[in-house]
């Protein structure tokens, strides 16, 4: 598992670095929000899930999507608005989804995916299925009303959902101290009588363990829990964001806690992999990403006839 977690994180990092480059080169419309530095959260949490478990994500979804098993090429194609994109070019970066793989969607509304994850858990309970749901969200979302309604409802109905907060301490340009009366976010769990765990999100093994605890409890019918992961967003809010909101000393300190570097150190120190193994993983993923980008860049745009399809299921209404 430890090697798998490393591989997932490198996959995300490689993908996101490429997204950043594609954005700088002018290939991407709109905004792309990369998760460079936050890979431990996605890899550790999704590593504890089955393919049938459901995940809802945020406007910063690429890491969650990759960790949930979505392949590179349809993701790049979606970011490029191509017909072969995972959403056929209809959604873009903030609306990635692969429902067959349990990835119930990224979301462009902060906190928008949290009630939906609660709903997936509710649906599993109604249908008597043993699956659990995970809601990813950031520190900013914990001040949205829908967040509070979601934790409360999930707790009252003992729904099998894990609430995962990636606390990178920034809501775009606003630091957490300026936005949250109680910046120690794990304390929000107390208000809803659910277990809360506060974990270093740059320690992927700790994330994995904590996520497993929450997921297993949910699967046993013990209801929801909150997992707060301290992470750091290496880049700005979106690709090309000039930032300037944080001090250089702060940034330097966090870069030293890179989740990939930490896991690499652990694997080597414990004889779980050699340098050569890890280089091979990186090289393989780099090749895969290159191939996926090439495929995506060569893919066709959606046909204009697709503009008005899939608005409704089974029939398009009156024209």
């Amino acid at each position, binding site marked *: 598992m430890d090697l798998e977690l490393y591989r997932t994180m490198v996959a995300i990092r490689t993908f996101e670095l490429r997204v950043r480059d594609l954005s700088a080169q002018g290939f991407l419309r709109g905004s792309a929000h990369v998760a460079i530095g936050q890979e431990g959260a996605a890899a550790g949490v999704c590593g504890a899930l089955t393919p049938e478990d459901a995940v809802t994500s945020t406007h910063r979804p690429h890491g969650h999507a990759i960790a949930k098993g979505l392949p590179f090429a349809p993701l790049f194609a979606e970011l490029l608005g191509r017909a072969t994109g995972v959403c056929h070019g209809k959604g873009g970066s903030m609306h990635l989804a692969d*429902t067959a793989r349990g990835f*119930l*969607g990224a979301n462009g509304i902060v906190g928008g995916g949290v009630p939906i*994850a609660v709903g997936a858990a509710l649906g599993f309970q109604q249908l008597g299925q043993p699956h659990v749901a995970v809601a990813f969200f950031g520190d900013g979302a914990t001040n949205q009303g*829908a967040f509070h*309604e979601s934790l*409360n409802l999930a707790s009252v109905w003992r729904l099998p959902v894990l609430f995962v907060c990636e606390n990178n301490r920034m809501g775009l340009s606003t630091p957490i101290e300026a936005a949250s009366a109680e910046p120690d976010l794990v304390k929000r769990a107390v208000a809803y009588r659910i277990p809360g765990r506060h974990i270093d999100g740059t320690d992927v093994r700790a994330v994995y363990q904590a996520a497993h605890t929450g997921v297993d409890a949910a699967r046993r019918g013990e209801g929801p829990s909150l997992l707060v992961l301290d992470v750091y967003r290496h880049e700005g809010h979106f690709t090309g964001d000039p930032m300037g909101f944080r001090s250089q000393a702060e940034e330097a300190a966090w870069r030293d806690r890179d989740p990939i570097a930490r896991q690499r150190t652990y694997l080597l120190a414990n004889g779980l992999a050699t340098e050569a193994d890890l280089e091979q993983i990186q090289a393989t993923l780099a090749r895969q990403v290159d191939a996926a980008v090439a495929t995506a860049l060569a893919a066709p745009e959606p046909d204009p006839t697709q503009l008005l399809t899939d608005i409704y*299921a089974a029939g398009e*209404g*009156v024209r």
Partner: protein
Amino acid sequence: MAELHLTMAEAINLALAEALEQDPRLFLMGEDIGEAGGYFGVTRGLYQRFGARRVRNTPISEAGFIGAAVGAAMVGARPVVELMYADFVTVAMDQLVNQAAKMRYMFGGQVSVPLVLRAAFGAGRGNAAQHSQSLEAWFCHIPGLKVVMPSSPADARGLLASAIQDENPVIFLENKHLYQEAGPVPREREPIPLGVADVKRQGSDVTVVATGRQVQIALDAAECLAAEGIEVEVIDPRTLWPLDAEAILRSVKKTGRLVTVHEAVKRFGFGAEVAALVAESDAVAALKAPIQRVAGAESPVPFSQALENHYLPDVAQVVAACRRTLANSHK
């Protein structure tokens, strides 16, 4: 006797019970819908019969539970949500408009969101501005939503059956005033397809397109005018979106005169859409007079009955509007 005689509340209750019985994936959510049977009594007895798992009482968390309905629908359950007052939809607009309506499209057709949101709406009971609105125009304006407004117990039962079977998010709007109005209802379950209007009264002189509670008002106005030999055709769209434009245009081509009636505010309302539909079609050539729109007043709903009486459209206004189409004939 081939028919039942039920109030609209009872007809909806029957449709819900039948659906709960038929489909184990189906469940209800809403405030006070459990033991209390719903604020307007529409879910009376269902909790006792089907239990807490199928009839779920929610906290006062419209964004939370409507969002939960979206997620549940996406994984294959069939939620039917009750919104105590349609006005409260404002609390949940993100989940309805940005999420439920758009999931299928944004995700390239991967998923559908088969949820029904039943909402009590309408003025005339002194509930004042925040508990009396008609907001159907908002919902009709959002691609991805379907909007249904029954005018009778029979239509309510049949349309709700179809709404529940529909794979899309459907807003089912129930005028509170109609809850206790009784009428004939088929004994057997007969789904009424969405998107099909009903000609409630045939006529050749004026077309009146009316919705919800105003359908009866239009019929009453038609009775008045019939005494003078004026025959009004009353069309009840039943489904506001998808709209049966064909039925409306066919009627307008026949009569050459159009009056729309609803209790929602006139500007940017459903009547405006009907008028525009006619204006941009070849039916416009058949018009013998300008189109008339009868609607609720352009104000928030007032509390005092003396004022609220003037807020709602009434029979006299519909009669007057019909007369204007006859007086203003340029053909």
